[in-house]
């Protein structure tokens, strides 16, 4: 399967040139770009691990692409996303967030159903990858 979180997951994986253009768009809007990675793609897993701080004072996308290259070197077998933060009053949250790296194999999710009374079902989504301990997932 293909995890379709993020703004551009229905397109072919973005090239570095395309990623650079999106990053520059964010910087030109005054947004800080943050790199995060995870080995737990659960849709409610909000807090991916941060690759350093959000980059607040970098004017050129090249600086962020260098950090992305370093992150890929360390975590290239995992999910990596870029998020842009807008600090303007009335927003103060993410403005754009998209995947820039994904594992070669994406095993997807198991849907667990726990059957209750009145045909009520309690649903739980489990990433197959998290059957293995943190740190040893997506090792092939």
């Amino acid at each position, binding site marked *: 399967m293909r995890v*379709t979180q993020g703004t551009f997951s229905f397109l072919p994986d973005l090239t570095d040139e395309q990623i650079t253009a999106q990053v520059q768009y964010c910087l030109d809007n005054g947004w800080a770009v943050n790199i995060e990675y995870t080995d737990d793609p659960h849709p409610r897993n909000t807090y991916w691990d941060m690759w350093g701080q959000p980059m607040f004072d970098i004017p050129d996308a090249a600086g962020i692409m260098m950090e992305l290259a370093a992150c890929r070197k360390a975590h290239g077998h995992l999910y990596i996303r870029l998020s842009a933060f807008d600090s303007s009053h009335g927003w103060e949250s993410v403005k754009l967030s998209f995947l820039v790296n994904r594992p070669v194999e994406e095993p997807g999710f198991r849907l667990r159903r726990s059957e209750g009374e009145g045909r009520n079902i309690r649903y739980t989504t489990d990433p197959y990858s998290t059957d293995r301990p943190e740190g040893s997932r997506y090792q092939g």
Partner: protein
Amino acid sequence: MQEIAHTIKGKDRYRSGVMEYKKMGYWEPDYEPKDTDVIACFRITPQDGVDPIEAAAAVAGESSTATWTVVWTDRLTAAEKYRAKAYRVDEVPNAEGQYFAYIAYDLDLFEPGSIANLTASIIGNVFGFKPLKALRLEDMRLPTAYVKTFQGPATGIVVERERLDKFGRPLLGATVKPKLGLSGRNYGRVVYEALKGGLDFTKDDENINSQPFMDWRERFLYCMEAVNKAQAASGEIKGTYLNVTAATMEDMYERAEFAKQLGSTIVMIDLVIGWTAMQSMAKWARRNNMILHLHRAGHSTYTRQKSHGVSFRVIAKWARLAGVDHIHAGTVVGKLEGDPATTRGYYDVCRNEFTRQNLADGIFFDQPWASLNKLMPVASGGIHAGQMHQLLDLLGEDVVLQFGGGTIGHPMGIAAGATANRVALECMILARNEGRDIVREGPDILVEAAKHCTPLRQALDTWKDVTFNYASTDSPDYQTSVTAAA
């Protein structure tokens, strides 16, 4: 048209009998509205021979303290404060016999936090008043002091996006069709296919409640199976607007509680339930961390005709105060009424932190929103993937684009229709962010994206020539920026 005051003061003002409204203190051309006043702009069409100033004064009177004759009991009150004051009357450009009347109301006339009370005054009696042929409430300025007495959208655009983990693009939805007749089991199939294919939301239609072919509980149970299954298939948060509209508040709370218990992120209501019920549901939604979708069922009965009724921009303002999270606000390019400038005005009312007066878009007043949450506009009705560049250009990215027929009518099926819409959307956002001119290059961008997406290719082929070009019945009266009252 500026005229002098006619107000009679002192003992003569209260002589028993009938007196013109403009003499009773409802026409005060020298009045300067206070920052705390509620201001309304009405389009008035007086009966032949009726003085427009007197007509404006009558509207002020009948929407505040007046009755048809002088009453001595006014003298027991601070009557001058409570009288609404018409303070400006302008001829409507290019519309003979119509006038814009500006009326100021003291804040003490209104119960805090109650749309029912506000509307009972402003549109309560006066729309049937005989000396007028027609009357339309065009816009209102709600002062910060009054705005702050309302909860506002239960969730708001920002928190909705955070909960859904979806940023930087419009959300995608579809209304399940056919809207009547599907069993719960068949209905859930449509939801599953559409969500799995790439939509974020599916939606009950306005008139799907609990009918012989499908009990509401059946719909909720099968829909939540579909939502969870699609969520597991995609790794994305998905939702479906479960319509909890019902005959009584007790029924609505029961349905909303069931939706919550099943793990739904969102419920839906129809405008026809009324303002008090909407406010109750908004409070319920805030308490229960649920998004509240409003379908504006019925609004065209009073918003569409330009001479009589209530403009949708006013309905949108009331809805933002009342506290819903989504509101259908027009598509411009789809099958339902919507002039581009007027629609832009509605979207501004929903999403701005401060809405500036802009007569070219039909916005008569500066409107502070006092940090009330933003209301997500929804574009629904006769739109398809081939219009993606226009939709994004006209409506921006904080909007839900709902392709019902444009998803379910796809020749290769519902999931393919959903994928076509999602790819069309993502490629257009990518191109826009890259600095490309999407209005001009849009069709080429879509054709290029269709090379790696057969469903998009098929969607473009199927609907390429579908447009709905009819003149709007409701468009702004001012073509360029001119000055109106405060």
